């Protein structure tokens, strides 16, 4: 039993590194691989398929060597007795499987703050690997067909070489974005084709980025160290930048790539602050407990924040108390606790002085006057890490980048929006769940709530098929954050997994439609059901799954289960915190809106009369390489929720100490109930979810399916709201006015100062130096120095010219000179000597 599970880290590492190998191979050999790099695509697809196999083998090994816990459907009595509280930790220990923690490489010597490359593998990691690699494999295979036009020279009809680049069918997308310089024709081999850009295909390059993307995402999931998480976090960000800007000659694409990157940087700034807070106070960024090189067990973040000896309760760790105590007290503490309090090693904890300190610290924690000591650090760390997730998972207020990311090729949208980029944020919130205090969780819940509502409403009016899906993604991510924020850890993670399947399915279906119609605009589609039945029915499956369709309390699509879990936890939470019940209502209304816009999309695309005849006539079913992945994903979109397999598997990874709920807030009155208590609301939640989804579905059917009401009339009736939603609540305009324009003003000012004051001063200084140099050159150098040197030379020359007469070449004359000279010398000396007497 233990034997099989020991292979899991190696398998996952293999799965993680295979895409890297493919990336390296394609980078160096890509263009040489077959005609136009076609083999590069096969290499990348093979690599990700290999890692999918490895991940699924790991999943099977994991499931077969651990026992799946039975979720206890006990109905909580909402007045937890002492017996319940005592029983809770025991119950959670039984279902949990100890995570596999290890370290490949340590960056710091033993005894110093811990930093390194390691892994942290629990059932969540294994599940994420299985999901990410499966989705990515489908997307790779799909891309082999979808990107075929990159195999030869491409004429990009969206790039007008003379004048501004066009925005294709979505001219309203780029409102309020300052155009950023992008040299469309700056590549030597690009040539003018008519009025459009003609460039070589980039088939291999596309797959090279897909490989790097998969590698980064898998690395992020397997990482056992927050620094490693951050590194892969940024790698995911840069990959999304490359892929969103894949059609880099299009101004809209390069703008969208910049936007995604810059908006993510804002979130990452918070992430860094959070990491710094953890690093500075806890002295480690490692998640689990790992052994140092000297064999000492070092406590990771999780067991410092939720120490085993405190029953895994979330208490301010010693490091944070030490960081926050007044100086005088710190000295006292340090005298017994040692200088390196933050090292927090096992041995240090075992000593008797440690017991003293712990007792003292206990007072600090429990003393109502001082109990917030260091608590703010915990909140800062939580909020900081969540900031990164806000950027990556496109939560309000940083949600603006994700819809623009639709500028990338459709497979990229599918990858970014399902398995990788946005999943990273939710995954990290899930992974970091034990460190979040109730206050942070409340912030997460409210952010998720706002996001899900905003995005869902915007999706109602969007007409770009990918944009509807993008806002739907933002909205579903809001759901996950809401679930996590309300303490529904398993619910949020469950929804993350199911969402990945049906959202990548929906995106790939929309890609298939775009492939057939060559437009993104739903108002130009319609009646495609007969033309492309496979795409239509798989997309219907996706729509049903995301809407949470099912026969209540019997069976349903995957979304049915995960959305129910979220709503049930919402009811559970609202029951405890009546003030925050708006979170539940927003989630319920969001569910209705989700069903509405998804079926609006489906009806507009596949049923009704064709709106543009040429497009309808040219449309055709996509080739098998495109529709097979759809079928595979549709299968998972249907079945992912069955038999409670995923929730039960997730239960093994539930963070220690969170089974009994996240506890009560210190600053604000908020209490996170145990997730197991949500079962008592299960029936109500199912009915609510079913009712709201049905309402949305019926409304969409009335408006777009049967067309009993004219959508045009409704739009006119609600013109102000329509304008608000059509303009996406004016967020882009708001940010433009709040941030972009002030930055432009400031930068223009700065450039003015630069050009006039600084450049002027430098120019004038340069002019002065030039004059001084001229004076120096003409007067000092040429007249004096050169003159002196020349004069000496001339003088020497004339002396030499005079002396050379003496050298006649006649030996006898020389002898004469010698003799005469000697005699003259003697005569002179004797005269001088004689006169001296």
């Amino acid at each position: 039993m233990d034997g099989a599970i020991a292979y899991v880290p190696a398998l996952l590492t293999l799965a993680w590194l295979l895409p890297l190998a493919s990336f390296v191979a394609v980078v160096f050999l890509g263009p040489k691989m077959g005609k136009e790099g076609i083999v590069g695509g096969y290499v990348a697809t093979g690599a990700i398929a290999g890692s999918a196999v490895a991940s699924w083998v790991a999943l099977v090994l994991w499931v077969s060597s651990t026992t799946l816990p039975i979720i206890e459907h006990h109905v909580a009595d909402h007045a937890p007795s002492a017996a319940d509280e005592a029983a809770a930790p025991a119950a959670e220990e039984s279902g949990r499987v100890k995570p596999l923690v290890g370290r490949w490489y340590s960056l710091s010597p033993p005894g110093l703050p811990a930093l390194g490359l390691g892994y942290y593998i629990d059932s969540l990691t294994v599940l994420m690997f299985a999901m990410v690699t499966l989705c990515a494999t489908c997307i790779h295979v799909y891309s082999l067909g979808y990107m075929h036009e990159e195999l030869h020279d491409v004429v990009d009809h969206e790039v007008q070489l003379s004048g501004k680049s066009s925005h294709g069918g979505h001219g309203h997308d780029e409102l309020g974005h300052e155009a950023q310089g992008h040299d469309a024709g700056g590549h030597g081999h690009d040539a003018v084709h008519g009025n459009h850009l003609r460039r070589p295909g980039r088939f291999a390059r596309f797959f090279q980025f897909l490989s790097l993307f998969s590698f980064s995402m898998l690395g992020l999931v397997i990482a056992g160290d927050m620094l490693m998480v951050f590194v892969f976090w940024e790698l995911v960000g840069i990959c999304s930048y490359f892929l969103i800007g894949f059609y880099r000659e299009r101004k809209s694409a390069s703008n969208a790539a910049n936007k995604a990157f810059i908006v993510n940087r804002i979130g990452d700034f918070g992430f860094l602050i959070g990491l710094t807070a953890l690093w500075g106070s806890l002295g480690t960024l490692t998640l689990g407990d790992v052994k140092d090189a000297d064999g000492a067990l070092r406590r990771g973040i999780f067991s410092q924040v939720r120490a085993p000896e405190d029953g895994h309760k979330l208490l301010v760790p010693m490091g944070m108390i030490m960081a926050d105590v007044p100086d005088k007290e710190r000295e006292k503490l340090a005298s017994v606790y040692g200088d390196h309090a933050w090292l927090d090693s096992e041995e240090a904890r075992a000593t008797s002085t440690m017991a003293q300190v712990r007792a003292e610290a206990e007072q600090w924690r429990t003393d109502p006057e001082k109990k917030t000591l260091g608590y703010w650090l915990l909140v800062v760390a939580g909020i900081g890490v969540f900031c990164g997730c806000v950027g990556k998972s496109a939560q309000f207020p940083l949600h603006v980048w994700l819809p623009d990311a639709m500028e990338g090729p459709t497979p990229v949208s599918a990858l970014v929006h399902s398995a990788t980029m946005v999943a990273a944020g939710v995954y990290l919130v899930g992974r970091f769940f034990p460190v979040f205090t109730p206050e942070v969780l409340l912030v997460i819940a409210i952010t998720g709530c706002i996001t899900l509502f905003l995005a869902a409403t915007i999706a109602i009016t969007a007409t770009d098929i990918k944009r509807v899906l993008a806002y739907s993604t933002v909205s579903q991510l809001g759901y996950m954050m809401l679930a996590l924020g309300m303490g529904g850890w398993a619910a949020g993670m469950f929804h993350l997994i199911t969402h990945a399947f049906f959202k990548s399915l929906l995106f790939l279906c929309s890609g298939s439609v775009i492939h057939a119609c060559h437009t993104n605009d739903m108002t130009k589609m319609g009646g495609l059901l007969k033309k492309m039945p496979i795409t239509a029915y798989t997309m219907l499956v996706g729509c049903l799954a995301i809407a949470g369709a099912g026969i209540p309390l019997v069976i349903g699509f995957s979304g049915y289960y995960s959305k129910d879990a979220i709503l049930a936890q919402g009811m559970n939470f609202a029951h405890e915190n009546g003030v925050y019940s708006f979170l539940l209502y927003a989630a319920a209304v969001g569910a209705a809106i989700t069903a509405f816009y998804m079926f609006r999309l489906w009806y507009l695309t596949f049923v009704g009369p064709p709106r543009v005849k040429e497009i309808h006539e040219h449309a055709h079913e996509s080739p098998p390489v495109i529709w097979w992945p759809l079928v595979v994903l549709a299968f998972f979109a249907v079945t992912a929720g069955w038999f409670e397999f995923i929730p039960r598997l997730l239960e093994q990874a539930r963070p220690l100490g969170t089974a009994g709920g996240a506890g009560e807030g210190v600053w604000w009155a908020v209490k996170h109930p145990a997730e197991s208590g949500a079962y008592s609301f299960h029936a109500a939640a199912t009915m609510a979810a079913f009712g709201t989804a049905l309402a949305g579905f019926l409304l969409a059917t009335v408006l777009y399916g049967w067309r009993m009401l004219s959508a045009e009339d409704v739009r006119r009736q609600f013109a102000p709201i329509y304008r608000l939603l059509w303009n996406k609540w004016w967020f882009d305009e708001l940010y433009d006015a709040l941030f972009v324009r002030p930055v432009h003003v400031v930068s223009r000012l700065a450039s003015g100062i630069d050009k006039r004051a600084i450049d002027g001063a430098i120019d004038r200084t340069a002019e002065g130096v030039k004059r001084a140099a001229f004076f120096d050159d003409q007067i000092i150098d040429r007249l004096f120095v050169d003159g002196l040197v020349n004069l000496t030379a001339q003088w020497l020359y004339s002396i030499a010219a005079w002396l050379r007469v003496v050298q006649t070449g006649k030996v006898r004359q020389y002898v004469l000179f010698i003799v005469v000279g000697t005699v003259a010398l003697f005569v002179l000396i004797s005269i001088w000597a004689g006169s001296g007497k």
Partner: protein
Amino acid sequence: MNILAQPVGVSHFMAVGAVLFVCGAVCMATKRNALGVLMGIELVLNGANVNFVAFGSRYLRDLPERALDLDGQLIALFVIVLAAAEAAVALAIALNYYNNHATIDVDRADELKG
């Protein structure tokens, strides 16, 4: 004071040396033949040698303790050795010069003049 009336002393030797020296110098200054010049050099050197030997002798000095003793004779020996070496080199030069110019007229050897 007539030098010839004096007993033989250093001054007489010096007079002989001076005569030899002047003869040599005149020979060097007047001979166009390289061998003649060489002979003049030998005369000059030996003129000097006579002086050294004379200064070395205790019997020629009024104050014998101021004589150079063996030093004078040694220097003379050195000069003889030097002269022999010099003669060998000079004769070689002369021979080569003759081979190249078919003459040993020193006045014709003015290729290095300024």
